[in-house]
C-alpha cells in the first residue's frame, strides 16, 4: 500500500516537472529572418505558438507588399492605381492612403506619397544611377501634390501625371500588421524589425526593451546610443541609408525634397521616432529629417510621438516629448 502511494506521488512529481519543462520550452525565443519590402525582416517572439505566429507575420508582410503597397509589383493595389489613375482597391490599401494623405496635410506636404515620378527618376540605389537632368526633375516635381488624391469608399483617384510611392511608410505598415497578428496569438513578447523599422511589444506592457540607434557614420549594426522603452514602434530615417554616388564621387541619399526635387540638404544626419503607430513612426521619421529639429516639434506633439535627432556636427538632441532613458555609447556624440 505504502509503495503504491509512493509510486503515485513519484509519478505525479515527475509529470509536474515534465510539464514545467514543456511550458518553459514553449517560451523559448523563436526567430525568423527573411526578406520583404526590399529589406531584411527579423521576427523574434516569446510565448506559445511562436513559430506559427512568425510564419503568419512573414506571410502577411509579403502579402501586404504584393497585393497592396508595392509600386513595382504589377498586381498590387498601388500599381493598379498608378496605371489606371482611378480604381477600387482593398479596404486596407484605401485606409493606408487615407492616413497618409491626412499625414501630408499635417506636415504641409513634406512627406507626400504622390512623389512616385520623382523617386523613379532618381532611382537611388538602383543599378544605373545618374543624376537626372534639371528639366526632368522640374516636370516630375510638377506632378507632386497630395491634394489631388481623392478617396471615396475604397475607390482611389489620383491625377493623370501622378504616381504613388508608399515607400515612406511601407515598413511601418508592415510592423502595424505584425502587431495585429501578435495580439491575437499566444505570443508574450515580440520584436519585429522590417528594415530599420521596429515593433517592440510585450503583453505586460513593461519598459523592458532596449533599442540601439544606428551610428550614422558606421555600418547598420553599429549603434551609438541605446533607448530603454516599453511598447512602441520605432523608425529611423538617415541620409546614410540607400544612396548612390555620381561619376564625380558626390553622394546622393534617398530622401527627396518635395520642394526642390533633389535629395534634402540640411544639418540632420538621422532622426529616430518613437510612436504608437508604425505607419506614423515611419512617415514621421522622414518628415522630421526633411523639416529639421525646430519645425518637427509641433508635428511630433500632434501625434504624441517623440524623437532623437543626430546632427552632422555629432550633436544629439531629443524632442520636448522625449521621456525615455537615453544612453550615448560613443563619446564622439554629444547630447545637448
Amino acid at each position, binding site marked *: 500500500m505504502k509503495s503504491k502511494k*509512493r509510486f503515485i506521488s*513519484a509519478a505525479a*512529481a*515527475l509529470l509536474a*516537472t*515534465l510539464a*514545467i*519543462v514543456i511550458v*518553459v*520550452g514553449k517560451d523559448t525565443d523563436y526567430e*525568423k*529572418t*527573411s*526578406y520583404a519590402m*526590399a*529589406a*531584411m525582416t*527579423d521576427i*523574434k517572439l516569446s510565448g506559445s505558438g511562436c513559430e506559427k505566429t512568425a510564419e503568419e507575420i*512573414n506571410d502577411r508582410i509579403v502579402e501586404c507588399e504584393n497585393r497592396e503597397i508595392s509600386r513595382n509589383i504589377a498586381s498590387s493595389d498601388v500599381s493598379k492605381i498608378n496605371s489606371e489613375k482611378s480604381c477600387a482597391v482593398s479596404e486596407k490599401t484605401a485606409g493606408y492612403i487615407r492616413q497618409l494623405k491626412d499625414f501630408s496635410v499635417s506636415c504641409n506636404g513634406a512627406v507626400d506619397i504622390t512623389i512616385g515620378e520623382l523617386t523613379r527618376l532618381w532611382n537611388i*540605389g*538602383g*543599378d544605373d*544611377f545618374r543624376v537626372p537632368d534639371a528639366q526632368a526633375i522640374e516636370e516630375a516635381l510638377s506632378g507632386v501634390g497630395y491634394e489631388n488624391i481623392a478617396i471615396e469608399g475604397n475607390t482611389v483617384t489620383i491625377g493623370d501625371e501622378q504616381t504613388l510611392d508608399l515607400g515612406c511608410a511601407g515598413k511601418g505598415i508592415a510592423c502595424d500588421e505584425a502587431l495585429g497578428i501578435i495580439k491575437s496569438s499566444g505570443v508574450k513578447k515580440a*520584436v519585429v*524589425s522590417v*528594415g*530599420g*523599422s*521596429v515593433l*517592440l511589444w510585450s503583453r505586460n506592457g513593461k519598459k523592458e*526593451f*532596449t*533599442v*540601439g*540607434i*544606428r551610428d550614422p557614420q558606421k*555600418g*547598420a*549594426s*553599429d*549603434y551609438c546610443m*541605446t533607448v530603454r522603452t516599453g511598447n512602441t514602434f*520605432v*523608425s*529611423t530615417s*538617415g541620409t546614410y*541609408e*540607400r*544612396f*548612390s554616388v555620381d561619376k564625380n564621387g558626390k553622394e546622393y541619399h534617398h530622401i527627396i525634397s518635395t520642394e526642390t526635387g533633389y535629395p534634402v540638404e540640411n544639418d540632420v544626419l538621422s532622426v*529616430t521616432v518613437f510612436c504608437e503607430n508604425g505607419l506614423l513612426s515611419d512617415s514621421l521619421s522622414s518628415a522630421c529629417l526633411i523639416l529639421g529639429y525646430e519645425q518637427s516639434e509641433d508635428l511630433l506633439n500632434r501625434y504624441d510621438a517623440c524623437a532623437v535627432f543626430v546632427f552632422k556636427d555629432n550633436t544629439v538632441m531629443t524632442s520636448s516629448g522625449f521621456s525615455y532613458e537615453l544612453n550615448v555609447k560613443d563619446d564622439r556624440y554629444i547630447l545637448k
Partner: protein
Amino acid sequence: MKNYFARTTQERKLLGRVDVLIIILIAAICVGSCVPLFLKKGDVTAKIIYDGETVEEINLSQNEKKFTLEVGRCDIAVEGHEIFFANSPCPDKVCMNAGRLRKSGEFASCVPEKVAIILKGDRKSPDAITY
C-alpha cells in the same frame, strides 16, 4: 550527546532511499533543462541566411581557419573570429561596406541578393537596432 546522524523511525519513513532517488532524478531533469540557457552565452556563432533559410552556422569563437563560402551570388569570407561580405554583384555594396563582423548582435545584409550574416552569442546586445 545527541547523535545527529542517527535517523529516527519517523525520519526514515519521510525520506527513504527511493524518495532520495526521485528527488535526485527531478533535480537532474531541472538542471538538465536549464543547461541550454547557459550554453547560449559565451561563444559567438555566425548564422548565414539565404532567402529566409539558415544555410550555414559557424562558431567564430572556435574558428582559426581562413575560407570563403559562396552563398547565392555573394562571397562570404571567414578569417578566424571575423566574417564579412568579400564580394557581391549588388549595385550599392552596402553589404561589403558593413565591414568585418565579430561581436554578438552585429549583422550585415545584402538585400538585393537576399543574403544575411547575423552574429549570435551573449544576450547583452539591444533587442533591436533601428537604422
